[in-house]
């Protein structure tokens, strides 16, 4: 029976993301007929009922915090303690009579004049000493001017000082745990450990052709370590190796990638080196998002594929509970938007929490103590709310507890940094979508794209009913800037290129219409998002602006759309642009429909989840409010979408994909 060997050198205990990930994959591998084997960090101690063979092999984990402490840490600690003692002494001296005398050293008589009765006799002795010191200082100045070749001495002395400073800086960089030498040393030690441990592992399990070795968390040091392991164990390197890279190479969006290429030369060289030294081994490369795959394929060295996210489970029967649990899972970090929760809770407090419509469940443990500053402050604010309405999970969860929290969630809020998660995946999001839980996510990043299709379908569905449709084409005009002369659009598609360009139309709102749905089909390239602005003009001439940045959906024909409430507006002005105008986009078609909505109640503006446009607590709160106000709709559409997400993202799909890619079996 072929073996499925999962290597994760960061697994230290039976909790956390790494262990959960491995558990799902190994179970699927077992179900698909492989013999599962887990290779972990040496610190890993499995429970008695752990069902698979495991090898606690690796000494160094993926993260720098898992590095062995440098012996120089004692030196750093002592140096720090001495420096602190010196600073304390200096500060105490400053805030004393001596400090006061020092401040008045330029004018010692002023010290006595201002303190005719307060200055004590012993202080006056100090004052006399200070006066003498001041006179000596002046005399030293005189002497200084008598010295010949002063400039020569000054420049020599300053060169010596600069030299000494440089030495100290380098020494500090060398001994400090946060220094560049420590990072360099960590990468090399990690590579060596990965090489030795993997060689030992491959020998131990006698890996052979047909076996799959899967490394789901790695970077260049591990990759090169694997290469070293191949050389140490030529007999065992006939297995098929599958490497999953989950961290982004580039910052920002596609348009800025070219400018970062030079910085990434070390990464490219690592891949080049790997390619040069491969000796017929079967190695496959993956990421877990299309955006990351594009980034790694840009290196042009190995073909990368996008693999499914495995730690998911099929949706369970609907068991909604009151109050709806507004949930955040993941550790308390600024990158994950934890700091938005105190104002979010406060914004929803009166109308939802107090009235028993919502309860907040927020995982709040720090990934590294004592926590990021923003997270520390946010957690402190959250702890001030009553615990029965704001439940904080202050420690890392076991897999079971995590699953329990996930499945009991009513709304999953993921206020992630859109820049950081432009290409990176979120396991929590996929888990929530698979479980049929409505989500709240930021715009213009990977997260919002995951619900692009159902949102687009929902908006398209709205325009199929009894609506007042507006014919597209002749009413639209193109402009460079708001308020500038516009030219009528005669031919479609319309090509928008350059900053500030948009197309615009002005419409009178038909009586009784409360919403307008805007959909635009275009060649939205990767990294393109649509910015749709709706400006309402009320009867009194006042204006109100609503803006959406939306992810296009990829349903064959590439649509982006948004819905705006226009109740009470006399006219609307709609503008459509490329949200990040760093490349041309050709808009093929725009459809508009005024929608009344059923009955008197408000209409949901999205489906499955809500995308918020602005990284602010008010914007996130508005999105959560939208879900809570139309909870049945969001829950139903999320559940309908769940099976589709699960079909794409599950452990069996991942194992099958790897299996198909094994050398000689590529289809």
């Amino acid at each position, binding site marked *: 029976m072929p073996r499925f060997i999962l290597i994760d050198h960061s697994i230290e205990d039976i909790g956390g993301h790494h262990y959960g990930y491995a558990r799902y994959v190994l179970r699927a591998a077992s179900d698909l007929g492989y013999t599962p084997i887990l290779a972990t960090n040496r610190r890993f101690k499995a429970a008695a009922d752990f069902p698979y063979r495991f090898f606690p092999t690796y000494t160094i984990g993926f993260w720098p915090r898992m590095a062995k402490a440098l012996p120089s840490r004692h030196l750093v600690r002592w140096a720090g303690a001495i420096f*602190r003692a010196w*600073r*304390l002494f200096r*500060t*105490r001296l*400053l*805030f*004393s*009579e001596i*400090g*006061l005398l020092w*401040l*008045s050293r330029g004018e010692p008589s002023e010290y006595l004049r*201002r*303190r005719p009765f*307060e200055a004590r006799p012993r202080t006056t002795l100090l004052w006399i000493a200070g006066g003498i010191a001041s006179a000596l200082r002046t005399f030293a100045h005189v002497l200084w001017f008598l010295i010949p070749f002063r400039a020569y001495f000054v420049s020599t002395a300053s060169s010596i000082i600069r030299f000494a400073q440089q030495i100290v800086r380098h020494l500090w960089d060398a001994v400090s745990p946060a220094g560049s030498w420590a990072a360099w040393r960590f990468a090399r030690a990690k590579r060596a450990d990965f090489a030795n441990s993997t060689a030992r592992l491959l020998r131990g399990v006698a890996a052979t052709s047909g076996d799959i070795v899967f490394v789901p968390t790695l970077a260049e040091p591990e990759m090169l370590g694997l290469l070293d392991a191949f050389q140490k164990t030529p007999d065992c390197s006939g297995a098929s190796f599958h490497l999953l890279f989950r961290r982004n190479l580039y910052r920002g969006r596609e348009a800025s990638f070219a400018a970062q290429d030079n910085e990434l030369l070390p990464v490219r060289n690592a891949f080049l080196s790997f390619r040069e030294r491969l000796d017929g081994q079967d190695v496959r490369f993956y990421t877990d998002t299309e955006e990351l795959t594009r980034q790694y394929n840009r290196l042009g060295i190995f073909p990368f594929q996008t693999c499914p996210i495995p730690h998911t489970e099929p949706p369970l029967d609907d068991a909604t509970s009151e109050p709806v649990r507004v949930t955040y899972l993941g550790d308390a970090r600024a990158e994950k938007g934890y*700091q938005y929760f*105190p*104002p979010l809770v*406060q*914004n929803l*407090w*009166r109308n939802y929490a107090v009235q028993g419509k919502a309860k907040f469940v927020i995982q709040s443990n720090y990934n590294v103590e*004592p*926590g990021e*500053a*923003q997270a*520390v*402050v*946010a957690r*402190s*604010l959250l*702890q*001030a709310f009553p615990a029965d309405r704001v439940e904080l999970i202050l420690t890392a969860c076991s897999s079971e507890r995590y699953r329990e929290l996930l499945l009991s969630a009513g709304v999953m809020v993921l206020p992630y940094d859109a820049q950081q998660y432009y290409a990176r995946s979120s396991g929590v999001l996929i888990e929530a979508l698979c479980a049929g839980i409505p989500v709240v996510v930021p715009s213009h990043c990977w997260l919002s794209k995951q619900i692009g299709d159902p949102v687009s379908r929902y908006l398209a569905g709205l325009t199929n009913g009894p609506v007042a449709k507006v014919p597209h084409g002749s009413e639209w005009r193109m402009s460079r800037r708001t308020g500038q002369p516009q030219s009528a659009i005669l031919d479609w598609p319309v090509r928008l290129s350059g900053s500030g360009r948009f197309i615009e139309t002005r419409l009178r709102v038909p009586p009784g219409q409360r919403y307008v749905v805007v959909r635009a089909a275009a060649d939205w390239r990767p990294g393109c998002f649509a910015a749709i602005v709706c400006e309402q003009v009320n009867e009194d001439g*006042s204006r109100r602006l609503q803006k959406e940045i939306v992810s296009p959906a990829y349903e064959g024909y590439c649509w982006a759309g948004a819905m705006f409430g226009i109740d009470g507006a006399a006219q609307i002005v709609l503008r459509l642009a490329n949200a990040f105008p760093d490349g041309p986009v050709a808009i093929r078609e725009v459809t508009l429909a005024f929608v009344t909505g059923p009955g008197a109640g408000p209409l949901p503006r999205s489906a499955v989840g809500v995308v918020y446009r602005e990284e*602010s*607590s*008010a914007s996130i709160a508005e999105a959560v409010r939208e879900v809570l106000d139309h909870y049945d709709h969001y829950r139903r559409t999320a559940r309908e979408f769940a099976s589709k997400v699960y079909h794409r993202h599950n452990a069996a799909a991942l194992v099958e994909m790897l299996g198909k890619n094994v050398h000689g079996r590529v289809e």
Partner: protein
Amino acid sequence: MIRDCGVVQVSDISVGFGNYDSLSLIESIGDHYGLSALILEPDQWDKPIRDRIRNLSVNRIGTSNHFRSAAGRIEFVSRVAAWINDLRPQVVIIRCSWNIPVLLKLNYRPSLVIYHSTESTLYYGNADPDFNRLAAAKIDVIVFPEENRAAADALRCGFRGIPIAIAYNCPVRFEEAKKTAMRPVRNGRILYSGALDRNATFVDYYADRRLRSLPIDIYGYIGGSDAEGTKNVLESLAGGIVYKGYVDTLELESVRGDYAFSITMWNPSNENQRFACPCKFFESIASGVPPIAAPHPQCKMLIERYGCGIVMDDWSFKSFQAALTEARRIYGTPAYQAMVDGCRTATLEELNWDYQFARVRRLLPPLNP
């Protein structure tokens, strides 16, 4: 001479003339522990000496140099430390970074040290974060008035392991807020009260010809880095914009409720001003006067939460003018009344001292007998 008190607060200003948040804090701490309270304050000549404010004893500490000078700080810190070492109170409250060196000069460990960090630590110079780092081990609870300042200082000064509370600068007690009636008739004018400094509070905006038709009353103390320039600007005001001088806090309080709107705007040129959380913003809301605020994060967040004012798009003159024009347009309409109602809701629900102090109270340990 005061010989017996359980709580001592070291203030950086002469108290009782604005900045009531500090008074509220010491009062609440005293009530919480059932201890008598004393405030040690510097000698501000323009503020009359008072022995008691509310139920609090006050002692003014003279210095031979101006209390805001470097030498004055050293003197004040040294004298206050001597006082505290003599009195040995159980609870010490240090107000703002200016006074933090006091902790380094104490010869005993109080049962509880509360640091009320009312200004960003960088506000008093680049050396202050280091003073704070050195004092961190002697602090038990830190109270910040603004979240972003708290995060910045927690990182900069090594405060992440110390319990932190955020208590906004809203000194009005809940009972008092409940009794306060919003004035139904307003004078239709816009109020600016506070520091007047060309470099810090955009005083030049008020002299712009395009604003002359707007009814704005300006109160405040002329100071800052260009006092003469600020004075000249204020003298050049024309049209509906009037500088009414520097008036007593009580006088200002008596007229605030007559105004239609108030203005809150600091130049975001430094951390302290960008993350501004001025008392006057909260006092205005408590009086039912909707603020027109620059997008300082806390002001923006609260106005958006309660719909109790107008937030400018940015700090530019164009945005300022647009916000004032919008204020004038909606004055007297149902939208304005909704803002006034929003002020009341905000005050009763969150922006009152009792609500804010609850965030501090949960961090207060029992005192050793």
